[in-house]
């Protein structure tokens, strides 16, 4: 009997604190798997965000650094500049990356820091109980937009940061993908690997945006949440390679 697909070495054998059906778990797995596959577990350094994935370091089995809310890419800059031979990536939520951290994100990308950014777009602030994120779609109800996000009431428009970043010369690879079905999960996995490879090849800043379900905040079952990504979110956030 050949064991074939099992828990990657880079994923600790620990239980997560995530809600049932949460996309973070899926993406943690993909990152760990990609690290294993590329045989970089011993030189990868992750930067964990402040958000639901704050304790990602309890799940991954490699070196991880905390970053204050929104500043993961500044922290990653410090690490990578000091240890250019290590593979450095950040894992950040939409609030972390695109709201409070917008300046750090924009400038790290513009400097072309040779790091990889995994950007979890779940259209909300998960950890703090479901407030509006920059990526919340129009009409979506959240704790801070009780009657739905309304750009005409000053709530702002869904922010497509990946498109924005891809206009920068420092960015070598930018893609938007999702984990809304097994095939997509596999594709997301490929993109994450590709992003790591582009870092290994010293090409500059690589970005993988992943549309990710948050059944709790969306008040949906895990399956409904996946479907909501495919019917609603993708309309606002089309999938595909944005820059390569």
């Amino acid at each position, binding site marked *: 009997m050949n064991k074939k697909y099992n828990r990657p070495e880079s994923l600790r054998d620990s239980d997560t604190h995530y809600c049932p059906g949460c996309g973070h778990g899926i993406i943690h797995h993909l990152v760990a798997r990609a690290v294993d596959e590329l045989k970089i*577990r*011993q*030189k*990868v*350094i992750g*930067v*964990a965000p402040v958000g639901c994935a*704050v*304790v990602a*370091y309890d799940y*991954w*089995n*490699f*070196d*991880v*650094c*905390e*970053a*204050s809310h929104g*500043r993961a890419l*500044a*922290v*990653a*800059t*410090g*690490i*990578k*500049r*000091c*240890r250019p031979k*290590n593979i450095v990536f950040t894992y950040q939520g939409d609030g972390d990356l695109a709201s409070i951290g917008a*300046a*750090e994100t*924009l*400038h790290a990308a513009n400097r072309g820091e040779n790091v990889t950014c995994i950007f979890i777009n779940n259209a909300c602030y998960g950890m703090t109980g479901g407030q509006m994120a920059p990526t919340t779609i129009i009409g979506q109800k959240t704790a801070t937009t009780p009657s739905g996000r309304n750009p005409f009431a000053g709530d702002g428009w869904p922010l497509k940061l990946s498109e924005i970043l891809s206009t920068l010369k420092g960015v070598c690879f930018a893609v938007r993908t999702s984990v809304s079905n097994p095939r997509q999960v596999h594709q997301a996995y490929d993109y994450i690997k590709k992003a790591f490879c582009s870092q290994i090849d010293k090409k500059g800043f690589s970005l993988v945006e992943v549309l990710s379900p948050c059944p709790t905040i969306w008040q949906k079952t895990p399956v409904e949440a996946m479907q909501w990504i495919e019917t609603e979110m993708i309309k606002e956030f089309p999938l595909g390679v944005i820059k390569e």
Partner: protein
Amino acid sequence: MSGNEAMGLGAFTAGCRFYAGYPITPQNELTAYMASCMRLPGRTFVQAESELAAINMVFGASAAGFRTMTSSSSPGISLKQEGISYLAGAQLPAVIINVSRGGPGLGNIASSQSDYFQSTRGGGHGDYFTPVLSPWSVEEAFNLAILAFDVADFYRTPVLVLADAIIGQMMEPINLNRKPLIRNRKPKRWSLTGAKNRPPNIVKSFFLQEGLLEEHNLLLEKKWQKIKLREQRSSIYGKKKVDCLIVAYGSQARIARQAVDVLSCQGIKAGLFRPITLWPYPDKALKKAASLARKIVVVEQSLGQMDEDVRLALPNKEINFLGKTGGGIPSSLEIVKFVKKLTKN
């Protein structure tokens, strides 16, 4: 050489490998100095997009195990408070230089010592302290910059160097012949290097599980106590037994020294007590010095901040205060006048 440059040279000499900064007067000469020397091989200079980015880059560089520094002036240091609190919580060594100016708000760019509270009372959130070193000359600025790295590494803590605009901008010669001692360069086993032949390292300040943060903070508390015990530094100028002991630090201590000289000429026995570490406050030495003094005068470029530490150290003494705010600087003449009036009674 200016104080700003001397601190840059000190950092370079101490083996600083990563510097990130954002321009602000009156510390621009320091950033400019780093912009040239930290572009040499093996070193990194980053002009960060903001003070927030700078302190967090330093967080990363420190987590990676390297000696690292950032610098700014008052408003920029306020912006770094969250980051400093994180560094303290995650026990990361780093050096932060504040060449302070007049506040609050945009204030002005004159010399001021009104960031004392912020520096010594953890301007950021949470139960923590940072060692604070305060030079009074360009040469000491150089030496304390080096010391800051050593202390930071030894205790795994961020260390502040609080220099005012006068110290930062004034130029005086420094003696570079004596080779400075660089200590505490042990390997940093906790640092992030990639989990090769060892379990993963994690750098963090987050302890959600009930009781964990308490445990962690008590550990930190032990460290603060140890630092309090071992790292108090101060110097004394003038006679031991005095009519009046002047307490001042940084550039203001320079001016006070002149006042002490003038007073001696005029037959008044005066002394100067100068804290070099503002946290931990050198209260033992101060107590001793004060026990031989009839009057105590605290002189600051502020409305009275260090004043409070003196009062805490000397609860049974009457403490007199002479201060100026918003870039005003108590001159040696004013000090002389103040002391004369005081000792007359």
